[in-house]
């Protein structure tokens, strides 16, 4: 058995790549798959804090690439989920410290040990993105229903095509059903029509994402959170299961909307 390498990317920063990587990793590990998450955002390491593993870092990806540490020494195993491991990015170097050939070798060395290698790509379309995309067997693009994020996603789709990778799949993140219903947010169908790629998941805006990141316990560990369940369904789809897309209810109550409207009549309530 050899691992599937999935790169999670977006172009635009701040749309939720790291959160997505962490949660898909957790969700796959909870289903018994062996997963290694690689933080490819060298210089801006964050996957460690989202996964709650920041205190256990000894070596990082650059140490491995430059031969100061063996891959197995640098990988941190999650104590909550023994199937999950993480390779942290270096914090004191920049993206040029690693090149695409080194990423290929690194993932090839890992392939026989796990079922999935998830690569958290840095924002942008340059060196760091090229590193992250080089070893990818599959590419997942994360976007939010906002003009800037969707436009950048389209650029990235073009670059993934140019890199001769299979057609990427889309995660629509931070969807706010109430705003979509009011006609004030791009709907899933709108985004799919514009980007013309297949959907693999919709993650609703959920405060649990922030509270879980605060605690370093990814939301996919929480079976009550809407977003957590969304990641669980994405993991199932990655494993080839046909899981219907959930229809999210507008959870802003009438009372809340009324309160919001009083606070900010022009904003129309959020």
């Amino acid at each position, binding site marked *: 058995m050899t691992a599937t390498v999935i790169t999670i990317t977006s172009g635009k920063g701040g749309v939720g790549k790291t959160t997505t990587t962490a949660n898909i990793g957790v969700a796959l590990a909870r289903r018994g798959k062996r997963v290694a998450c690689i933080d490819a955002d060298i210089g801006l390491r964050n996957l460690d804090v989202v996964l709650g593993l920041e205190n256990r870092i000894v070596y990082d990806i650059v140490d491995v690439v430059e031969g100061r540490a063996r891959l197995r020494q640098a990988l941190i195993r999650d104590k909550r989920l023994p199937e999950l491991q993480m390779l942290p990015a270096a914090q004191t170097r920049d993206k040029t410290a690693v090149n695409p050939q080194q990423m290929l070798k690194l993932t090839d060395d890992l392939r026989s040990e796990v079922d999935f290698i998830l690569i958290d790509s840095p924002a942008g379309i340059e060196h760091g993105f090229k590193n992250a995309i080089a070893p990818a067997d599959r590419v997942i693009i994360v976007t939010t229903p906002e003009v800037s994020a*969707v436009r950048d996603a389209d650029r990235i789709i073009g670059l993934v095509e140019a890199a001769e990778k299979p057609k990427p799949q889309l995660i629509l993140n931070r969807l706010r059903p109430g705003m979509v219903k009011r006609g004030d947010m791009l709907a899933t169908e709108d985004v799919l029509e*514009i980007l013309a790629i297949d959907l693999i998941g919709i993650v609703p805006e959920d405060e649990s994402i922030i509270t879980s990141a605060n605690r370093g316990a990814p939301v996919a560990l929480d079976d009550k959170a809407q977003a957590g369940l969304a990641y669980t369904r994405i993991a199932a789809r990655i494993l080839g299961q046909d899981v219907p897309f959930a229809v999210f209810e507008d959870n802003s109550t009438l009372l809340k909307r009324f309160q919001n409207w009083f606070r900010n009549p022009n904003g129309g309530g959020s």
Partner: protein
Amino acid sequence: MSWLDSLFGRKSASAQVAKSRLKFAIQIDRSNLSAELLNSLQEDIIRAISQRIDIDREGMKISTERGENGQRLIADIPIKSVRPKTASGE
């Protein structure tokens, strides 16, 4: 009066605005020909046309223009001599 709109549940439909703006922006992004590609195209055109007629290579301009019916490639090629070249020429 957007607060009245929201009071009566009328849609302000900013999502529709977003969608049409995005479509337009992305259309331009996608069709953006790089300078490198334009240079190669210019070389190809010069090679093809020079086989038949004499053109002013230095004065040649190649550009793109966006109109209602999509993007157009425009080549402005000054002719030096209208007399057709013979098969042996160049």
